[in-house]
């Protein structure tokens, strides 16, 4: 049951992820991306990580994708107006993407994934209470540093967006 569910979900995830790349229309592409994020949320739910699932749902599906759609709607992305990249650039893109995939596959093989079914050491770790305890005890410093990083990124964005006063 658990295994077949996982494979079905992974198939749907990859299917939508491929559609993101192959869709001609950028709006369709971003809507497929919304579906991809939704299936990833389902993956988190299978892993019993409720908090992560719902946060993925709110942040990626509800906020980030809305913003992406928002900005795409303002652009006029037609075949005619869009400058086509030269074939050399396309070739370079394929090679670099292939290298990235090689690295990822290598990393997964090296960590010894393979045929061993994945087992959660602590199945309840994804619940809000446990996650909060771990986050605010063991990983307090990285957590705070990450928040400062986000804050500085936000301030930087505001600074860049602000008009110059001469």
């Amino acid at each position, binding site marked *: 049951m658990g295994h077949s569910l996982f494979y079905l979900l992974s198939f749907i995830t990859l299917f939508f992820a491929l559609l993101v790349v192959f869709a001609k229309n950028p709006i369709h592409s971003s809507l497929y991306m*919304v579906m991809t994020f939704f299936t990833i949320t389902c993956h988190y739910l299978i892993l019993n990580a409720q908090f992560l699932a*719902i946060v993925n*749902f709110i942040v990626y*599906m509800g*906020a980030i994708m*809305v913003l992406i759609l*928002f900005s795409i709607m303002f652009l006029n992305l037609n075949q005619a107006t869009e400058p086509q990249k030269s074939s050399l650039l396309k070739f370079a893109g394929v090679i670099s993407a292939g290298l990235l995939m090689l690295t990822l596959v290598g990393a997964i093989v090296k960590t010894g994934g393979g045929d061993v079914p994945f087992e959660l050491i602590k199945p309840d770790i994804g*619940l809000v209470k446990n996650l909060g305890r771990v986050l605010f005890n063991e990983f307090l410093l990285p957590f705070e540093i990450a928040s400062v990083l986000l804050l500085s990124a936000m301030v930087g964005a505001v600074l860049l967006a602000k008009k110059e006063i001469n």
Partner: protein
Amino acid sequence: MDIAFIIEKLILISAILGISLVIAMYTTLAERKFAGFFQDRVGPNRAGPWGLLQPLADGVKLFTKEEIIPTHANTFLFVLGPSLSMFTACITTAVIPWGQDLFLFGRQVSLQVADINVGVLYVFGVVSLGVYGVMIGGWASNNKFSLLAAVRSASQNISYEIAMGLSIIALLMMTGTLSLREISEQQSGMNWNIFYQPLGFLIFMICSFAETNRTPFDLPECETELVGGHHTEYSSMKLGFYLFAEYINMFVSSAIMASLYFGGYNYPFMHLISNPNVAALIGVAAFFTKILLFIFFFIWVRWTVPRFRYDQLMKLGWKVLIPLAIVNIALTGAGILIFGK
């Protein structure tokens, strides 16, 4: 998972869906009646006694009208827009606790479809999903004004979601749980959260007005500037779904406000009633009374306050509500530190 459990949940889900649709239906009538009252008119009174059959007549009218899909519109997305609006409006009710447990046929029946322990966040997730219906519909219509309305709606929803989330954080600091059931249980009797979180409630309520696109925040549909709104190109029941989803959203956000801040199904002196079933049923009645009062408030505001200008809307969201919500978090933290909750 036995058969009785599945039947029980099926009955509960159908009942909740039916009740929310009927309430939304009659909210449209109530809105027109109150609008008539506020403007010193009679309001709809032709269909049935006191116009009680008016919502049915409206429904028949919308269903039998000609359905037009613009030639250059994207058909699939054009249909998906209103469906998504309706869908997201209906699924929030799954986590709302409608009452205490009932004891029927030797079983303990929970009046909540799903008690997930991240209930509050689930509500937020669905709320943030709600904007897709408007955006997709507005874009698929292939109409400049619809697109502008969709973009407006998206930016409004995103802006007010932030303040809404921050206002709820203060509440969660007090309750210490994300489950709507536990939040309701903590407010037993008259121990309602509104007495501890008045500022948080105010912010939350303003944001719910903005999220449901009700006046004074009904910028996505603005006849004077946008011809109609995101649904300019829609006709027949697809337009009906967009309009109807707003009323269901009103019902749902009233239910959320009632259960988060106004005690949910709790009422004063509830511990004096010894029969648990009677106590639970009175609780359900109390909950629906609160919901209806909130719906009345939504209508009251709509016919009293004019619409904001767009820059005023953004200013209120970003420069007033978000700082206020952060101040509220700080105040709540200080309160918990001094008084120990």
